[in-house]
Each structure stands twice: as structure tokens, then as C-alpha cells.
């Protein structure tokens, strides 16, 4: 692994130098280089160029100093979600982080996402997310009405599609999965936790005006919805500004709670058969017993000791009734 400091202020600039800063200013990029076996930060010094984003500078490092520097990217316009990384410690898209927003006269440190295994340099193995995606029960629409068959398509009101549209803005950059400390610091939770991206996906389907599948049992039993302690870290890093916690996770928690813990609703369902449902519904609607049953009846509870403190021990998401609680809006500063 290369560990030498590379300093080449005179390196050629991709665009003929037209926009190179006239005062000869330079930028210092400190990039993580290595692979699964290990690695470290390497410094690259380049001329400053006006109007660049971090990804541009990484590309200039590739073109002039380190042709084999691994970095994943596609659209360079914040629409594909490929170039996620941790820039000066903050998870962000490299293509949407302007160099001018970063503190001047300081090195720019770029590291791969910490929540996923390293493949090489700035590229991580995000296959976990694709595996989770396969376990989401897919969209299953209701039949068209006679009027809809005649009109040639489903009828839905704009206001009703907008709820799910918010989640369909997701570009799958997986920054939310990366920062979620249920898995960031607890690899072992990955087998039983879908993560914010896929809670948003389930919320999108649950709120879809046409969908008929009930995912509440799976969310509770297999996808670890209860483990989310609504610290809103996912919402904070979302480049699409999707309110993952408030608009997806909390409503899902409410639905799951309604399904699992509200005895009147349970009784009501027993008496009056629901029209929407799946084979898994029986499990979802039965009153819970055992440890899961002591989850909070109100979903806006912070897990004590976790809010804003990544190093605090994580207890797997069970509820401590004596602990100080935080409202959803207080969970982040």
C-alpha cells in the first residue's frame, strides 16, 4: 500500500488550467487508501480550481497522481447516489459537496463509509442493502374498478400519491444505512434489521394508495423496526431531505403498535374481518407476548444513552421504563 505523501502542485489540470485559482492556491486532499486487509490516509496536493465539488478533486487526483484510486460514481449531479463517503467525518455525497463550503486552509479528509466493508480505497461493499431489498414484500395493487378499466388507468388523488412520492425520491445512496448506529456499530444486528432506507421503502408501500399487502408483522418480527431509537441520524444525512424518521419510521411504528398492542383494535379486527391482509396477518394481529410486548406503547421514545452518543452501549432496542424519555422532536438537537 502506498503510504508516501504525494505533493505535485504543478500537476496538469483537466481543463487546460482555465479555472485554476490565479493566486496559486492549493488544496490538500487526504484520502483513505487501502483494501480489506488494511490501509491508511494518503495526502495529495493539487492546485485549487474554482467551483469544484469534492468528487472533481478526487477525479483530478486519479487523472494526475493516482490512476488506480478507487471511487464509485455515476451521475455527478446528486441523482444516482453512488459517491457516498465521509468528508471531514461527515457522511455526504462527494458530488454534492462543494469545496467552497469546506473550511478554507484546512485539509479535506475523505474516507469510505464506515458502515460497510471496505472493497478498496473509497469504495465499500454495499451488498447488504441489496440483500435487504429482496426481503421486502413487493407491491401488490388492488384490482381496477370498472370506471378505471374504462378510463384506462387507476384513479388516485395527487394528495394521496404525494405521501409515498416523498420516499420514492430516495436515490439509494445508503448514507442513512451508514449512519444508523443500530448497525454502524453493531454488525451483528444486520441480520435482523432492515435499516432506514428500507423502513422508508416499507412506509412507501404501506402508504401507497393501491397496495394491498400488510407488512407490519414482518417489520416487527424480521426487520427490527423496534430497534430504531429515532435519533434521526438518518434524516440528518439524507441528501434528498426525506424526513425518514418523522414521515416513515414513526408512522410505521404506530401502525405496528396498533396492530400488535392495542387490545381494542385487536378485538375489533377479530370481530370484523379485514379486507387487506396476507398469510402473515394472523401473526401480526395477535397480541404480542414475551419480551417484545414490553416495547413502548407510544412510539416516540428515545433509547437512553444512545441519543447523540455513538459510543454508548446499545441494548438491542428494549425499553427501559425508568429511563428519561425524549420526544421525537427533541431526539436531535
Amino acid at each position, binding site marked *: 500500500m502506498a503510504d508516501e505523501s504525494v505533493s505535485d502542485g504543478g500537476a496538469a489540470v*483537466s*481543463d487546460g488550467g*482555465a*479555472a485554476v485559482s490565479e493566486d496559486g492556491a492549493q488544496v490538500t486532499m487526504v484520502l483513505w487508501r487501502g*483494501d480489506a486487509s488494511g490501509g491508511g490516509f494518503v495526502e495529495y496536493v493539487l492546485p485549487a*480550481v*474554482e*467551483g*469544484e*465539488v469534492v468528487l472533481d478533486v478526487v477525479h483530478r487526483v*486519479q*487523472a*494526475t497522481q493516482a*490512476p*488506480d*484510486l*478507487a*471511487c*464509485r*460514481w*455515476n*451521475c*455527478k*449531479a*446528486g*441523482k*444516482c*447516489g*453512488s459517491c457516498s463517503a465521509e468528508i471531514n467525518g461527515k457522511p455526504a455525497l462527494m458530488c*454534492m459537496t*462543494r469545496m467552497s463550503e469546506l473550511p478554507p486552509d484546512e485539509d479535506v479528509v475523505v474516507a469510505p463509509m464506515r458502515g460497510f466493508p471496505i*472493497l*478498496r*480505497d473509497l*469504495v465499500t461493499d*454495499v451488498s447488504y442493502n*441489496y440483500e435487504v*431489498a*429482496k426481503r421486502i414484500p*413487493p*407491491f401488490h*395493487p388492488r384490482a381496477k374498478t370498472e370506471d378505471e378499466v374504462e*378510463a*384506462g*388507468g*387507476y*384513479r*388516485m*388523488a*395527487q394528495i394521496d*400519491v404525494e405521501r*409515498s*412520492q416523498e420516499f*420514492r*425520491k*430516495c*436515490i*439509494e445512496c445508503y448514507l442513512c444505512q451508514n449512519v444508523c448506529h443500530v448497525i454502524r456499530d453493531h454488525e451483528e444486528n444486520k441480520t435482523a434489521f432492515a435499516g432506514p432506507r428500507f423502513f422508508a421503502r416499507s412506509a412507501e408501500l404501506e402508504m*401507497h394508495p393501491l*397496495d394491498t399487502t400488510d407488512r407490519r408483522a414482518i417489520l416487527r418480527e424480521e426487520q427490527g423496526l423496534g430497534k430504531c431509537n429515532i435519533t434521526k441520524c438518518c434524516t440528518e444525512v439524507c441528501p434528498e431531505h426525506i424526513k425518514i424518521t418523522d414521515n416513515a419510521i414513526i408512522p410505521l411504528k404506530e401502525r405496528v403498535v396498533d396492530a400488535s398492542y392495542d387490545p381494542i383494535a385487536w378485538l375489533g379486527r377479530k370481530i370484523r374481518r379485514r379486507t387487506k391482509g396476507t398469510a402473515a396477518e394472523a401473526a401480526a394481529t395477535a397480541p404480542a407476548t414475551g419480551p417484545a410486548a414490553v416495547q413502548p406503547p407510544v412510539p416516540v421514545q428515545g433509547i437512553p444513552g444512545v441519543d447523540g452518543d455513538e459510543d454508548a452501549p446499545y441494548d438491542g432496542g428494549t425499553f427501559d421504563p425508568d429511563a428519561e424519555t425524549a420526544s421525537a422532536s427533541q431526539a436531535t438537537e
Partner: protein
Amino acid sequence: MPEYETHDFDVIVIGAGGAGLRAAIEARSQGLRTALICKSLLGKAHTVMAEGGAAAALGNVYPEDNWKVHFRDTMRGGKMLNNWRMAELHAKEAPDRVRELEEWGALFDRTKDGLITQRDFGGHRFARLAHIGDRTGLELIRTLQQKAVADGIEVFMEVKVLRLLRDGDGAVSGAVGYWRPTGEFVTFTAKAVVLATGSIGKSWKYTSNSWESTGDGVAMALWAGADVIDMECVQFHPTGMVWPLSVRGILVTEGVRGDGGVLRNSEGRRFMFDYIPAMFAAETAKTEEEGDRWYDDHSAGQRPPELLPRDEVARSINSEVKAGRGSPHGGVYLDIATRRSPEDIRRRLPSMYHQFKELAGVDITAEAMEVGPTCHYAMGGVRVDADTAATTVPGLFAAGEVAGGMHGANRLGGNSLSDLIVFGRRAGMGAADFARGRSGKVAVDAGQVDGVLAAATAPLDREEGENPYDLQHDLQETMQSLVGIIRTGSELEEALGKLEELEERATAISIGGGRLYNPGWNLATDLPSMLTVSRAVTQGAINRKESRGGHTRDDYPKADPEMGSVNFVQRIPEGTGGTAGAGGTPSIRTITVTPEPIPEMPDELKSLMELEEAH
């Protein structure tokens, strides 16, 4: 010789944008063992960048719209160079394909009656684009991606395909490539192969295309003996960002103009009124007032000239800049701020608002955008049969941007997303039929594979040589300056010579660092495709001695009816290819060009054109 793994399928689809996903879904639904292979992660393909919408004559907003009007708009927009049968199938089937997306979970914006709403776009007589704000491509790819996952289609992500394989009879028998994350080699045997590899734009310096758009499909088809057509017809989208330099070329959706945005020069003049061509004069507004009335009621006037087809608008912007009436950074102004309320702009164009705010520090609800032409779309591509998407090589199919013919000399905005789903499905059907009818076991010729792998690894073994990034840079400079939006014979000839020099240099690339996720090596393996398509575009442009659609010749400024009656077909004649080019591919010098008559339109469709003309 490097080792490789082998996978056997009935159908493999190369490329996982809209067309590839739709093709794989179709082949899988017919019970065939289907694999989807993509160069990036699933869901990242360039389809996500499509913004404005998918054109389909649903008639939800204007009931008088129908496939006949859509067909006519498409043919006129393509300057009649289109394959009429493709344009017909596209216009007829697009509505069903869009409604099918809704059945698979897509959530389009709605009309007041709750149906899919439609927006105006250049060259379309009626508001016709089904859309979701300005992120329609993302919705399309996500819907198809989720459907493909639900259907259990096997996906090979981050696999770069190097070459198609053929059996002794000349039929395609599979493909060979490598896993980008590990650099390990992989081969596929398949009874049928669908190419859905998208665009070629990365050969230009300013492009809306991502790094993936290196023309792999067109190049691999040529190397496998297939015909390609109309390669000279490259669309420069009129509105790409021009500043900052680092984002130059990134797309600004035509939806801005569809929703009321206007173009102005440095003098504040709406200059498009000065550039209305005779062909579109009858259906274009004469005054600003008339154009403005049209937005609210299409029967109250004609459309404003900002909504002429893209080739017309791009050329006009180019002329204004050349005449010294451009913006400070060499574009013109696109103004929506004075035309719509800030709330409206943020609701209808959320990702444009976001893009300008975050990348350029411009608030488009308060100030004008600076825009200019950017290399955007290849109308030309692999020659296909309209109904089955079959290429001229048995077992090889092509759909989406990699295929040629559908859009003629110029594509209308919105016709790309609908093209993907109409012909993606047809390619899946064509490949499935072919695979079912192909008897016997398909085998990989180890000799062919070994040859490809030896050439692919050569840059890693070379101690000294060319830097692939330098080569890519020089190629982009060459194509931008000599084979750009306005072309001329002497410059095109100069480009041919430069491309041959670049090919020579590309046979001597050296790259360090091994095969594990090595972008330098990845680029070295993309360069043979980029050189091949660049050559094809240049040769086509030299031969088409006229100006038509996206192809503009300074030295032949008018359309020539005789030229308009032929496609320029390019191919590498059987047995002449060799391995003298970059990465052991056939040299770009072996590609031939032949004019062949375009298929004649049947009378009933011709009469549609005439009937509409009379309006």
C-alpha cells in the same frame, strides 16, 4: 492465462437501465433463465438522470391526442429519417407500457380526475409526458428495479462486459467480462443476448452522460459483425449547465421550458422568435403574447418557439453565443423565475431547484440559469428489426439508446423513456423466442475467451506506456472541437487522423495497481469502445453531406432529399476485423460505411403525415 468463472443462461441482458430492466423482466416472465449484467450498481444507470417524463398519447389532458399524432410528431422531429415501423410501434404501445408501470407501483403525478397527468415538451403537439415532478427517470428505474427483484432475476452488478462471443455459425453465444470490485473474469453462455448499454456521450468533453456511457454496446455489436446506422446523428441537448466548469454539461430539463421557462440573450431578447424554421412556422407562435396564451390553453394560440425540437433550439443558442450575445460563461439565460411563482417552481421542478442551489449557488426561483448545449443522446445505434429488436447477427438483440432508427435524425424529449419500455419489452420477447427456438447446448470457445483476457490484462503487465486518463482527455477534446454540434468536412477529416493516432497510443496503455477495483484499468478497457464509436460518428458525419436533425454541416447547411432517403450503415465485414485496435479489438480503420435506402413508409402512414400537414 487468467482463470474465469462461467455462468449459463437462456437470455443475458447487458445493461440495467430502463431498456435492460424491461427486457429482463419480459424474458423472465416467459420462464427463461435470465441474467441482468450491469457496469454499475443496480439502480444507478443513466436512466435515473431522465427528468421530464415519458411521452405517451394517453389523452388524459388533451383527449384529442392519440397515437397517430404522436407518430407524426416523432417522424417530423426525427426529420423523417426514422424507421417508420419503430415510430409506429412506439406511438401505439407507449400508453400501455406507462400504465403497466403504474400497475407495478410507479406513482405519476395526477390530473384533477385522478389519472396520470401530462406535461408539454418540445415538438409534441399536445401535453403528453407522464411524469413525477422532474425525476421521472428515477421513478422508472426504481419501479423496474423493484419489479426485477420481486421476480427473482439474477443480477450481476459492477460487471464490465468486454466482448460478445460467437459460435461457429456466427450466432452470438455469450459474453466475457470482469467483476469490477475484484477484477476476476467471468463468462456467460446464453442462447440470446440483449444489448441495452445506453449512450456514447463520454467521448465528448461536455456531456450530460455519466462515465458509463462509453458506447460499449455499439462497439461490441460492430466487433461481432452487426450493422449500426445513423451514428452521425448525435443530439446536443440545448440546455446543459455551463457554470461552474466542473458541472458543465449536466442536464437542465426541458421541463423548465415546458412549464413556461424562456430563453433570453445578453440583451434580454427572447431570441428563439428569430429562429423559427419554415417546417414548424405554422405551429409556432409569432409573438410573445401568443406563446404565453398557449401555456394555459393550447387552442388559444400556437406554442412558443422555446418548445421547438431540441436540434433547432441547440443550434439557435449556439448562434447567439457565436454572435456575441451570450451570457458571461458562454451560454444563454433560461428564465423561469419571472414566469412562475417560487412555490410553483419548487413543486414542479424540485430537482432543478436543488441542483442549481447546491452546485452553482443559483436560486432559480429568483434568477435566471445560464445554459448551453451539451452532448446528450445518440439517435444512431445498432440496426434492429422493429418488431423483434433483432440485430443483423443471430441471437443478438438491442433496445433503448444503443439501438438506432427509432428517433431518426433527432429525438423528441420524452420519447426516450417510452422507447425504453416499448422496445425493452420487445427485445425481451424477441430474445425469449430466439432462445426457445435455439437447439443444442451453447458452448464458450475457450480460445476466444483467452484472447480477450490476454488483451485486457496487457495494460497491467506493461512497465511503461500511455496514461488512460490522458488518452480519454485527448479523445474528448478531439470530438468536442472537431465533431461537435456544428461540423465541417475539413475538421471531420482532421478528426479521422487524430482518432487513428489515439488508437495507436491506446495499444500501448500502461496502468499500475492490479485488477481490484482499479478505475484506471477500467478506463483502459472502456477506451476501445470509445474510440470505435467516435470513429463511427466521424465517418457517418463525413458521409452525410447535408444538415438534418442533430447533424449539422457548416459546408452543407441545407437538408438534401437524396441524403434524407438513406441510412449510412457501418459494419466490419466478416473476416476483416483482426485484433490490431486498442485492447485487441478490430482496428477502427476496418469499419466500412455504406448508404442504404431507408425502409419506405406504407401509404396509410404517409397519409397521416399529409393529413396532419393540412391542419
